[in-house]
C-alpha cells in the first residue's frame, strides 16, 4: 500500500470533506427520518420507525405540495429549455460582437447574489410608484401576490435559461460549417436551416439540459424561499424541498420537526442518488476514464 501513499495524500482533504459533508449527511438524513426528533425531544429522541413517512403521506395537503412541485419543475424547465434554445439560436443569428454581450447579460441573473436578484423582482412587482409592472400596466397591485407562479417561474427561469443557452451555443458552434454551406446551396432559408439542420443536431444537448435541470429544480428552493417563502395563501408556491426545509428548520412558533423534515429530505436524497447514477450510465462514464501513464 505504501506506493499509493502519494495519491491518498492528494485525495485526503477532498475525501475528508466529502465524507463529512456528503456521506455522513446522507446517512444521517436517513437515520433522522426514523426518529421523532423535534424541538422538545431534541435531548431524548426515540425511534419511531416509519411513522414519519406514514405521517407524511397521511397529510391531506401533500397532494397540493406535489402538484406545486410538478408545476414548478415542469414550467420552469420548459422556460429554461425553451428560452435557452431561443437565446442560443438568436445570439447565433447576429454577429458575434452582438451575440456575446447579450449572452453575458443573460449570465447576470445567475451571478448576481440571489438576495439582490430577488429584491429586484420584489421591487419591480411591487405596487406603484416603485413597482415597474404596476406602472406599466396602470394597475397598482402587488404582482407577487396576484401572480405568484408567474413570478416564481420567471425568476427561476431567468436564472436557469443561461445554462441551456451556453450548452446549446457551444453545440451550435460544433456543427460543421459544411452543413450550413450545403443547406444554403440547397436553397434552405434560415428558419429551414434551423429546423432541419440545427435542431436535430441539438437533440442530445437538449436531453442533457433537461435531465440535469430536472434534478436541480426538484431540489432547489433558494429563490422561492426568498421570493415568496412558499406563499402566498395556503402553500401557494410551497414545493417539496422547501416544505422539507420549513418543517425541519423554520417555523413561526419554533417547534421544528427535524424527523419529519428529514423524511421529506430523504425522499429527495434517494431520488438524487438514483437519478445521478442514471446520468452516469447514459452519459458514457467509462469513456471519460483513461489510464494514467505514470506509475510512481
Amino acid at each position, binding site marked *: 500500500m505504501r506506493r499509493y501513499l502519494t495519491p491518498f495524500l492528494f485525495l485526503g482533504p477532498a475525501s475528508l470533506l466529502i465524507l463529512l459533508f456528503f456521506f455522513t449527511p446522507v446517512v444521517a438524513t436517513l437515520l433522522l427520518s426514523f426518529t421523532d426528533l423535534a424541538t422538545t425531544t431534541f435531548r431524548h429522541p426515540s425511534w419511531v420507525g416509519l411513522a414519519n413517512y406514514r*405521517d407524511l403521506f397521511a397529510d391531506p395537503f401533500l397532494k397540493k405540495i406535489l402538484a406545486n412541485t410538478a408545476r414548478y419543475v415542469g414550467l420552469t424547465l420548459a422556460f429554461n429549455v425553451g428560452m435557452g434554445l431561443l437565446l442560443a439560436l438568436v445570439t447565433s443569428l447576429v454577429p458575434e460582437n452582438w451575440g456575446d454581450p447579450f449572452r453575458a447579460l443573460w449570465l447576470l441573473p445567475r451571478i448576481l447574489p440571489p438576495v439582490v436578484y430577488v429584491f429586484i423582482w420584489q421591487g419591480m412587482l411591487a405596487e406603484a410608484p416603485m413597482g415597474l409592472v404596476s406602472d406599466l400596466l396602470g394597475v397598482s397591485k*402587488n404582482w407577487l401576490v396576484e401572480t405568484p407562479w408567474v413570478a416564481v417561474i420567471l425568476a427561476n427561469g431567468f436564472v436557469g435559461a443561461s445554462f441551456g443557452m451556453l450548452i446549446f451555443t457551444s453545440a451550435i458552434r460544433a456543427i460543421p460549417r459544411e452543413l450550413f454551406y450545403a443547406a444554403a446551396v440547397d436553397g434552405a432559408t434560415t428558419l429551414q436551416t434551423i429546423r432541419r439542420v440545427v435542431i436535430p443536431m441539438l437533440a442530445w444537448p437538449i436531453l442533457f439540459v433537461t435531465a440535469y435541470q430536472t434534478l436541480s429544480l426538484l431540489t432547489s428552493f433558494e429563490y422561492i424561499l426568498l421570493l415568496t417563502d412558499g406563499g402566498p395563501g395556503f402553500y401557494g408556491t410551497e414545493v417539496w424541498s422547501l416544505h422539507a426545509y420549513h418543517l425541519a428548520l423554520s417555523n413561526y*412558533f419554533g417547534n421544528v420537526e427535524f424527523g419529519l423534515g428529514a423524511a421529506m429530505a430523504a425522499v429527495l436524497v434517494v431520488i438524487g442518488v438514483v437519478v445521478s447514477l442514471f446520468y452516469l450510465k447514459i452519459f458514457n462514464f467509462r469513456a471519460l476514464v483513461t489510464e494514467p501513464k505514470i506509475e510512481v
Partner: protein
Amino acid sequence: MRKWWILAAAVLALTPVFAQKTITIKAWTIGPDDPSITRLKNLEAAVDRLNALLAIEGADYRVKLEGDFDTTDWDPYLRRVLLAFQSGSAPDIVQASAAPLIGVWATAGYIAPIGDEVSRYGTFKDVFPTLWNAVTFKGQIFGTPQDTEARPLYFNKTLLKKLGWSDAKIAELPKMIEKGEFTWDDLLATAEEALKKGVIERGKGYYHRPKNGPDFLMWYRAFGGTAYDPASGKLVFDKAAALRYFTWLKKAVDAGVLEKDRLDGNWKRFHQNVTDGKVLFFSGGTWNWAEWKSQWVKDRGGESWLWQHFGFALQPAYEKGGRPVTLSNPQAYMVSSASKHKALAAKILAFVAMPDLDARHAVGSGHLPVLQATASLTENRFIRAVSYMLNYTTFQPQHPDLPKWQNALYRGVSAVESGQVTPEQAVSVVATEMKRTLKDQVMIK
C-alpha cells in the same frame, strides 16, 4: 534607582485594573418591529447602571453586554435561537414570547428556572401579578415579563365617514364592540356595504395578519372556542367554534371583503394598504401603532394622523351580547440553562425592571408596561386608551405542544381562505391533524 521606584509604583497602581474581570453576557432580542429596539436598549441601560453600582461597590468585575436585536421575523429568529440552544452556543439572555415558548423550551431543558433569583430582587415585586402566570410553567418561574400588549381591531374612520357614518357613531363603535352589540357579522355587513358603495376596493374590507401567529387562536376564541383545559392540562379543539370561525372567513372571502390571498406573508403590503387608508377594518397589535407612527405615516403627521384616521376596539364577539376578546402575548426575558452566569443574568433582568425603562419601551414601541408603577407614571394617550383592553385579554396556554395545535389551526384557516376546502372539510382536517400530531394531548369537542 529612582526609576525603579516609579516603575514599581506604576505597576502597583495598575494592578487593580488588570485584576478586574470583564464578564460578557450575550443577549438576543427581537422586535421584529423596529421601534421595539428598546428591548435591547433597556438591557444595555441596565448593564450600565449595574456597572456603575459595581464600581461604587468596588467589585472586581464589570459586565459587558453583547446584544443583538433582530428585525427580520420570528421565524428565522426562533430558528436561530433553537439551533443555538441545541448547539450549546446559546446567549445568556433570550427574549421571546412567554407563552408557549417557555413551555416548549422548559420542556426541552433549554432555559433555566429563575424563581429563586426573582424572589431576591425587589424590583420584580411591582410586576402585574397576572404576567407571572405567563412566565410560569409547571409551577416554576422561567422568565421575567418584558412587556405585554393588546391586539385591537382597528378601523378607518375616514372610510366609515365616507360610508355615511356620523362622527358620533364612529366614536361609539369601540363601546358597541365592548358591549357585544357590534359582532363579526356586523363587521362583515358594514364592509360589504362599503364595497358595494365603492368606498373600498375588493378584498380591503377586512385585513388580518399576513402570516402565522397567535392571533388565530384569538379569533377562534372570539368565535367561542377554548384551547386549553386547565383541569386536565390538555389542549382542546372545539369543532363548533372552529366551524363558526371558518364559515365567517369563507363568507368574508366570498363577499369580496377579505382577500383570498390575505396570508401572503407580506407585512409590507399589510402596512402599506392600511396606512394608505384603503382598508376599512384591520386586526393588528398595539405595537403597530408605534410602527405606523414612526415609519409609515411619519411624513404625514405621525401620531396625529393616526388619531385622525384610525380608531381601535376589541376583537368583536360572534353573537350579539357576547364577550369581545383580545390576546396578550407577553414578552419575557429568559436565562439559558447553558449560561455560565445565570445569577448575573438574572441580576441584569432585575435592573431592567425599572419604571423609567419600562415606560420608555412601552411608549416608544406601542406596548403595554409590565410594572404597576409605570402604568400610573405614563401620560401616553394611546397606552391609556388601550389599557382597558387588558380586562378582556387572554393568553396563550403554556403547553409545550401548543405550536402543533396552532399550526394545525393555521393550516385550516389558510386552506379555507384560499378556497382549497370548505369550512366543514377544514374542521375535520384540522381535527385529524391535531389527533395525529398531538395524540392524547388534545381533546376534540
